[in-house]
């Protein structure tokens, strides 16, 4: 490189330009998380009898190698011309999908999953690398000239194809957890114009499912408390949607008054020991409200009224089919759901991991037991403690201070990625960045939620913390491609 060219700035591919435009906040957060990760792995795999940090037989020793290599990888990714990512998005995606297909056939069976490619002493999990490839492909699709998600259903089909191809291939490798990660890309679709109703509907479905499955014991008005709460929720939802979504004050008021009136009447009747049975009561009140909405449609012709009425009808249908859906699940899935919802307790079986992990975290207290002083983790009470359950070690040894710090670090990183996304001058950059944010959100929520007993046990790693080169490299790819794209935004702006 000649001294003349280096004097002219900014120039793409110029390392000085990159350093100047690199988002150092993200880099610092990355280093903090990776360092904390290595320390946690060291603590989690620390053995009383023979402890040595640099032994390559130890997890921490190996992880340090992975970290070193990932720094090299990050540097290489930053040195690549940013346009290359956009240009080769589809080829990269296709290559990765091919690798996933190959993996299904050549990977050895490790604990029932065929997702690891063994190369000598090293093994890699291609599913971790298909994440950034899928993100690139999705970004490429959206950056097609004049692409608008809502313009045609075929655009949805294209987007969903890109998302679901890796899901199907990874499910074929029997890695359910890694496959579920791609569901987070619906956040990206939402950001790029998909109706919020779909996300809300998914949320509503989850709520109805949990309420209906969990609260079946107590009875209110002769129906299970769970179903009773779902009906009440639907009443509130319907009145709310009419006011906020349909924005018709008169209809909203009428429906609200109707609900309030019948509820009051039912309550007064129940005081006199005389009440309508739950199904009859809710059937009449919701039925009349839905009928009223449909009647109003004749007058105002608002499609949103139909949607509102439809949401209520479909929700009631879903509620009644939950029992059927639940009964059609595999027994071990039913059990996991029941354990997570606290319906059954099984300290030696499925909930053993979660139980021990809660004990580890809970016993840490405010300030923790101190580095390398955690008994739960040192004595291997928590299975998978250096991989999926690494958060336990932090909870036990660093306490509430440590866990909160890690959560805040992730929160800062992800919010930073979102803000990077929004400042991207190109659709490609923005969509890619949102993919990165979505993956992080999913891993963060599910992994920590699982360890503290809020989410079901879905085996996915905590980014930068869980032991393993593939996961670390996968997230390094995601983050450093984003940093590279972001660093060149100025040149894009001037183009």
């Amino acid at each position: 490189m000649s001294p003349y060219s280096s004097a002219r700035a900014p120039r793409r591919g110029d390392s000085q330009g990159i350093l100047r435009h690199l988002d150092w906040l993200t880099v610092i957060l990355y280093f903090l998380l990776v360092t904390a990760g290595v320390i946690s792995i060291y603590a989690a795999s620390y053995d009383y009898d023979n402890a040595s940090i640099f032994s390559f037989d130890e997890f921490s020793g190996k992880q340090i190698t992975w970290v070193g290599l990932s720094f090299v990888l990050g540097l290489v990714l930053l040195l690549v011309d940013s346009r290359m990512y956009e240009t080769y998005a589809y080829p990269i995606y296709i290559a990765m999908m091919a690798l996933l297909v190959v993996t299904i056939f050549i990977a050895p069976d490790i604990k029932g999953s065929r997702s690891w490619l063994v190369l000598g002493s090293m093994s890699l999990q291609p599913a971790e690398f298909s994440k950034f490839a899928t993100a690139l492909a999705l970004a490429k699709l959206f950056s097609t000239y004049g692409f608008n998600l809502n313009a045609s259903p075929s655009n949805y089909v294209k987007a969903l194809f890109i998302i679901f191809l890796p899901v199907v291939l990874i499910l074929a490798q029997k890695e359910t957890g890694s496959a579920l990660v791609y569901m987070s890309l619906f956040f990206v679709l939402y950001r790029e114009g998909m109706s919020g109703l779909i996300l809300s509907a998914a949320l509503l479905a989850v709520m109805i499912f949990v309420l209906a499955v969990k609260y079946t014991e107590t009875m209110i008005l002769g129906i299970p408390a769970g179903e009773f709460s779902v009906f009440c929720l639907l009443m509130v939802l319907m009145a709310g949607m009419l006011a906020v979504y349909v924005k018709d004050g008169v209809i909203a008021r009428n429906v609200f008054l109707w609900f309030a009136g019948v509820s009051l009447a039912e309550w007064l009747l129940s005081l006199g020991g005389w009440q309508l049975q739950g199904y009859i009561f809710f059937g009449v009140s919701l039925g009349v409200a839905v009928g009223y909405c449909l009647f109003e449609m004749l007058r105002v012709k608002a499609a949103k009224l139909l949607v509102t009425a439809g949401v209520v009808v479909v929700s009631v249908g879903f509620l009644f089919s939950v029992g059927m859906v639940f009964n059609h699940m595999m027994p071990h899935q039913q059990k996991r759901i029941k354990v997570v919802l606290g319906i059954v307790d099984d300290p030696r079986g499925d909930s053993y991991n979660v139980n021990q992990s809660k004990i580890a975290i809970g016993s840490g207290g405010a300030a923790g037991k101190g580095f390398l002083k955690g008994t739960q983790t040192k004595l291997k009470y928590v299975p998978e403690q250096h991989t999926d359950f690494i958060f336990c070690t932090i909870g036990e040894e660093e306490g509430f201070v440590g866990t909160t710090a890690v959560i805040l670090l992730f929160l800062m990183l992800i919010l930073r990625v979102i803000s990077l996304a929004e400042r991207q001058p190109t659709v490609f950059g923005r969509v890619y960045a949102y993919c990165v944010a979505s993956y992080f959100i999913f891993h963060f929520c599910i992994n920590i939620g699982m360890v503290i007993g809020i989410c079901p046990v879905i085996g996915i790693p905590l980014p930068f913390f869980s032991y393993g080169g593939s996961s670390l490299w996968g997230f390094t790819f995601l983050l450093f491609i984003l940093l590279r794209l972001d660093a060149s935004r100025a040149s894009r702006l001037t183009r």
Partner: protein
Amino acid sequence: MRKDYNLEKRKYVVGGFLVVIALIYICRLFTLQITEDKYKDYADNNAFLKKTVYPSRGLIYDRNDSLVVFNQPAYDVMMIPRDVHDFDTIDFCNTLQITPATLRERLAAMRKSPSYSAYTPQTLLSHLSARDYGRLQEKLYRYPGFFIQKRILRQYNYNCSGNLLGNIREVSQADIDRDPYFEPGDYCGDLGIEKSYDACLRGVKGKEILIRDARGRIRGRYEDGAHDIAPVSGHDLRLSIDMGLQQYAESLMVNKIGAVVAIEPSTGEILCMVSSPTYDPTSLIGRERGKNYSALVNDPLKPLFDRALQGAYPPGSTFKPSQGLIFLQENIVTLGTSYPCARGFISGRLRVGCHGHGSPIALKPALQTSCNAYFCWGFKAMVDKRSKYGSSDKAFEVWKNHLVSMGYGYKLGVDLPHEGRGFIPNAKFYNKVYGEGHWSANTIISVSIGQGEILATPLQIANLCATIANRGWFITPHVVKQITDTVIDAQYRDRRIPTIDSHWYNDIAEGMRMAVTGGTCRKANLPGVEVAGKTGTAQNPHGRDHSAFIGFAPYNDPKIAVAVYVENAGFGATYGVPIGSLVIERYLNGHISPERKHIETQMLESNTIIYSGVKKH
């Protein structure tokens, strides 16, 4: 590029979602880590195996520093049910040399125990032999959840005095409820000295904190034992018992039912305390304990019943010295007062028999010849002396209070468990039996010669003898002379003075000396040792008379006061006197003189159980 500000707002939805989740997680972590305490305990229960380290139980020596009771190690197989996985039961049983059926039985019994918990160590098998222990120790790594607990068992150098020395046994639920020190599986003293000095002998348990991993394997000591608590060994005891004398007295009592108690008068120290029949304390050690214990319980001769301490016997004529003291103290008689004895006490239609001797008779010769009539007349004179006391009731209360002050009627307070109190009636008792004003001295005349309602333990009888030997005081009898690193209770060092002026005792002692030199206890007249004594022959509803004797020696500087009580053995002179005098001679001289050897042989070989009416199977 087209910018859609409506869609850009959706970043708040995505970001907001994340922030809400993060807040929920932080709240959840707050409750897990800060609000709830239970997880710390759970983690500690997981990681730390708190193993009890049993202290060495105090040793027991006799008064001549000869070791009597000591410790031997034993090994218990413990298990923590929660940590036990499936294991090779056949190999396990072979190693311990038990049958699978026994193992199943033990497991079932363990689970039924009220103190059972899957999380704490439970005793599976106790008292492994050193050989079985060695074999199991080698294979223990194959059986996670099992460990071996070292324990202390007792061992004895003397195969005698089971009731006196006592034993140890595993604590019962009642013991655990009574004393918070005990935990299931602990041992506590049972019977005798082991029981009364348990708190002293047992020491303080220690704790060893071991680190246990998820597979139940022990990974070492927590912080190199910094939090361990070292056990504190129990105090050693030095008994006042002379084990040589004790054994000798027991051998004299073989095939007899009864008791021998010897006290050093100047200290109240019990030199020997025999309850016959006795049993071997080693039979109650280890695995055979249960079987042997029930055999003792079912034995018709009731060896577990400590006759020296708990037996309530009519003291018979051994009671007469106390009567003489009361009469003198109350000015009922003087040394010169004589009462007639027409081969008995005759008052109206009442007659209490006596044997041939001169009449009328004064106090000392009355003691010498054990004249019943003298003491009946004296008692009648006192109880019917309304001029002095106002009524028989009041006179009798005075009489009773003197006896209580001499240690009768209530527990003496010996440092052994289950002491009996004997029985001295009061006026109220007779008012209830006969009606107020419907009884007089004649009605209850037999109490004056230690019969009737009067009951005393051999220890109380011996204590009276010690009081006379001391000429007017005694120290509460006790069996422990010294406790290492601490002092014995003050009540075993302080004198107790009965309500009788001390100068009267010389006269009584003289009467007792006369009984030895020329009265009922001539067989106790040892060459070279001045013995004073009193025989007793107690009528009883259980067949032949009981034979009793009290005596002390040397007369002027008493070293030993002894009481002998042999059930259904006839006259006091036939068994009581020989046995008592042999004990005195053996203690003072260390051997039996050749001319008295025949008495010893006779006692060793005689059998009075045949008169007891008890059929031994």
